[in-house]
């Protein structure tokens, strides 16, 4: 066990950012703490100041704001589950949340924490990336918004600069006919994803796909989008997407994957599964939009 740390408790976002700025790399934001506690106990991460965000208000909202879906960084995975009924996309995100850790850890673990931990196998990254989610970041110099795919820069690495904190995830343009699906392979009912894939589809009024997202988890240092699969889907009808295009999208997923072998699964298995899971994710989106979800 590592040494003790000093506990800081900001009560506003500004205060939190100030604390982080003044202590720099020796300070660590503490959200739900479910990853931090383990990493700190194991000595993987070491810091002198723990900035507990529990008491910062207004960071835990999940709400529709016009055609945006806004998810506060301190909303828990359990909140995400409980808010499933809000929108077709929260339905998919809630289903994803229910696959993650356990009920009694989901009540602690936050969405922001999960994303800032930047694990390659994080379950929320693929569906959010496929939806084109953006990360809102607050820092000493003010606020900026970047695509979630750019938020992750490597294994356990993010684009957060010194003093910056993730405040919110924004999914733009969620109006109209949209659907998303996250699929993964796991061992027991509670597990880390061995490999995963998510799809997002938006239809125009004529029933053609106008927007598509396909993203893979646990096959690269960060979540990766399968642009070629997305390009294929755009302009298709749901029928075309389900018949043939999904299959080709799967092949593109295999080509995009850059998996490694570890104790959970081999590179080969992970790579092969991206195709199956991508096809299933697209198939599920189609089924939802056809009213059979």
């Amino acid at each position, binding site marked *: *066990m590592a040494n003790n740390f000093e506990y800081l408790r900001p009560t506003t976002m500004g205060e939190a950012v100030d604390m982080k700025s003044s202590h720099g790399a020796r300070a660590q934001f503490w959200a739900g703490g479910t990853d931090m506690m383990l990493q700190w106990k194991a000595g993987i991460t070491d810091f002198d100041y723990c900035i507990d965000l529990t008491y910062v208000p207004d960071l835990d909202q999940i709400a529709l704001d016009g055609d945006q879906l806004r998810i506060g960084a301190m909303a828990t995975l359990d909140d995400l589950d409980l808010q499933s009924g809000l929108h077709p996309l929260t339905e998919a995100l809630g289903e994803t949340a229910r696959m993650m850790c356990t009920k009694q850890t989901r009540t602690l673990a936050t969405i922001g924490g999960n994303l800032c931990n930047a694990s390659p196998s994080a379950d929320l990254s693929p569906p959010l990336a496929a939806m084109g989610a953006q990360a809102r970041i607050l820092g000493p110099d003010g606020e900026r918004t970047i695509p979630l795919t750019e938020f992750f820069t490597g294994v356990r690495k993010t684009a957060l600069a010194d003093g910056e904190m993730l405040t919110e995830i924004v999914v733009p343009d969620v109006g109209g006919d949209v659907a998303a699906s996250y699929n993964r*392979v*796991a*061992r*027991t*009912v*509670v*597990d*880390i994803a*061995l490999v995963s894939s998510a799809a997002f589809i938006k239809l125009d009024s004529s029933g053609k796909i106008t927007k598509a997202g396909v993203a893979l988890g646990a096959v690269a240092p960060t979540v990766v989008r399968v642009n070629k699969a997305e390009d294929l889907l755009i302009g298709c009808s749901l029928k075309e997407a389900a018949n043939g295009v999904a299959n080709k999208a799967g092949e593109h997923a295999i080509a995009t994957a850059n998996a490694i072998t570890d*104790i*959970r*699964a*081999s590179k080969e*298995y992970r790579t*092969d*599964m991206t195709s*199956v*899971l991508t096809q299933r994710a697209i198939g599920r989106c189609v089924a939802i939009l056809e009213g059979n979800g």
Partner: protein
Amino acid sequence: MGVHHMPKKLKVVGKDVPVLDAREKVTGALEYGVDYAVPKMVHGKILRSTIPHGRIKSIDSSKAEALPGVLGVVTHEDSPDLDWIGVWDNYRGKVLDGIARFVGDEVAAVAATTEKIAEQALALIEVEYEVLPAVLDVRKALLDDAPQVREEGNVRDEYRVVWGDGKTGEDESDHIVELEIQFKAQNYAGIGRNACICDWNGEKVTMWTSSQTPSELQSGIHQAFGIPMSSVRVVALPSGCSFGLWWSNNFMMLTAMLAKKIRKPVKIELTSQECMAAVKRRHIEITTGRMGVSNDGQITLADFSHLMDNGAYGFKTDVYFFCCDLWGGAKNGDYRVRGVSTNLVTSGCMRAVGDITMGLAVERLADMCAEKVNIDPVDFRMKNQIKSGQQLRMQEPRQHMKGTLTEYVDKLTDVQKEGWPEMFHLSSGSTHELLRQGAEKFRFKERWKGWGKPSSVNGSKHRGIGVGTGAHCCGVEFGGNTSSVVRVNHDGSVNVFSSCGRQGQGSETTLSQVAAEELGVSLDMVNIVTGDTDAMPWSSGSSASTTMFRTGWATRAAAKDAKKQILRIAAIEYFDSDDPETLDIQDGIIRSQNPEDNRNVSLEEMMNVLCSDSLAQTTVITGRPDEVMPPTIAFARQWAAQFTEVEVDVETGEIRILEFLAGQDSGTVVNPKVLKNQVIGGAICGAGFALYEGIEFDENDGRVLNDGLLDYKLLRTGDFPSDAEVFFVESPDPVGPFGARGAGESPAAAAAPAICQAVYNAIGVWVDVPMTPEAVIRALNER
């Protein structure tokens, strides 16, 4: 005279009473090792090796000792020059001997005022190793030029069971199938961890820890420190699930070393990681086998060679597995088993040792044979598995201190052996009735589509059914000695003193039921002491299904002896009779068995009068076994047959268990709730082994990589059908207490083959365990 009669009607045995500590468990009040504390207690931590094999050249603890709050450090230099032997002849050697034999091996220990200071002190101990070559591969450890892990060498003697003739078997075979399976090591992965507190006060040593084998631990301390057993008191606390993990472990000896050095009570509490990577685990096992079958479905040849790695301090030798008996209908058999040391964490007997591994290999080959001759798995088992009364394939356990069993038994008088089952013949039960009833309940024949044929296909989801069988012993002699004492107090209440474990198997309840039944008192009058070696007679404790069968027998014999003494006194004092045989105790009342005779006296009244007689100096009645128990290894087995349906996703390799039916023949059921839990618990242990469980060792230094539950996957409620059912076949045993036998292992052994067979039927290929999604896809691709 070791065979007790079976009463017509049982009053306490067979009742579904809640376990005695149920209220403590559901209120969180039951104290386990980690919860226990004593006054003035300080805290210890263990320094563990970072290399797989090395001799300590120097160890400097001066900086650690200088840290404020540190009370003492022990290293191999403090270790007594004495060997201690654990349960089942596991030769640990000295507590510390200056050699590290695996990553995580104990090197030194620190005591300090707080756990945190002790932990900080560990980092200040400087160890210089002479690095020795390590052997991390089981097969390589067999080679003559392999690095030797132990002074005794790596390779233990082979145990062999032979019947018939291999050459004849080959000639008689119409088909011969072969396989080799390497089984990953299963982790005990107990929920609950463990802690040990030791107080070395003057010449008296007291230890509190969770253990299944309190007396063996007492013996271990006696051996390791060269002090009389009378000076050693072990108070065994309940443990979390154990499966053989918490017997007598070397970290307990290290706690004693610290306590001796600093003369204060010391507590060492293990972390989950230590429990999962540095104590014990199941062996890595490799089975190579051939099986022959004739076209009429008769197994003609069973030829198996089995290798198991002992890790650093395991000493598995003289091993014998009961799958040989289970498939005893084979005409010719040759089973060979060897243990070999490696520089991996110690392995030990885990639930259903050998029968979950080698037994699975035997079942697999039998299934392959059955397919060759196109007989379904139920019929094939019925044709080739042993039946009650038949000769067991096991003949003699290997040499031991008292000679062979036969020699030992031959020395007994005919009176002592009166009514004994025939040696090396199966006394009771078999899989046959389980298979018959199970197949009917499961509608197996209707649902069976043929070998390698799914019962249904829906897109990528293929379903298949399967059946598996398992067997194990009911205690083992010479190493499994046991006893029990029953004391009747002057209020008519009863104490049972019996050294066994409380790891959730419910023995304290079932043994109490046995004592209450035999004595004729209600269960609430019985209080059992299972953990305090100052009170109990020595017993090898709870392992190898000794407790219900052998300790239960001893408990019944002790109760019988107490009852005999009570009735002798009662006959004279209350019934003007010199024939105690005419009396009986029912519901705590002593009565004549003659219905015309209405005289009676309560046990309480008689005991009270007895205790008040100051001249007699008999204040309590103490019963003990005064008969010889037949050697159970020579006739008693437990049986399981299980049926399952699984669904395999052929695109991802994921497997779901949809349906589970577990049949169990453990003789008379003493407590249905307790036994059902044992059976389903065993099945889930076996299912975990079949699907996900296996330790991953670092290929370079042998450390355990998945030393937490994040990556050592255990089945949860959602992974196993909630409507799984258990049924019992109660073939009463002529020797076991009220006809009961053992239970814990056979259900674990039956589950894996049932699931494997169901997967084979679903997808048409055999998958080696653990059948992870990836393993399934690999097997499908290799087809």
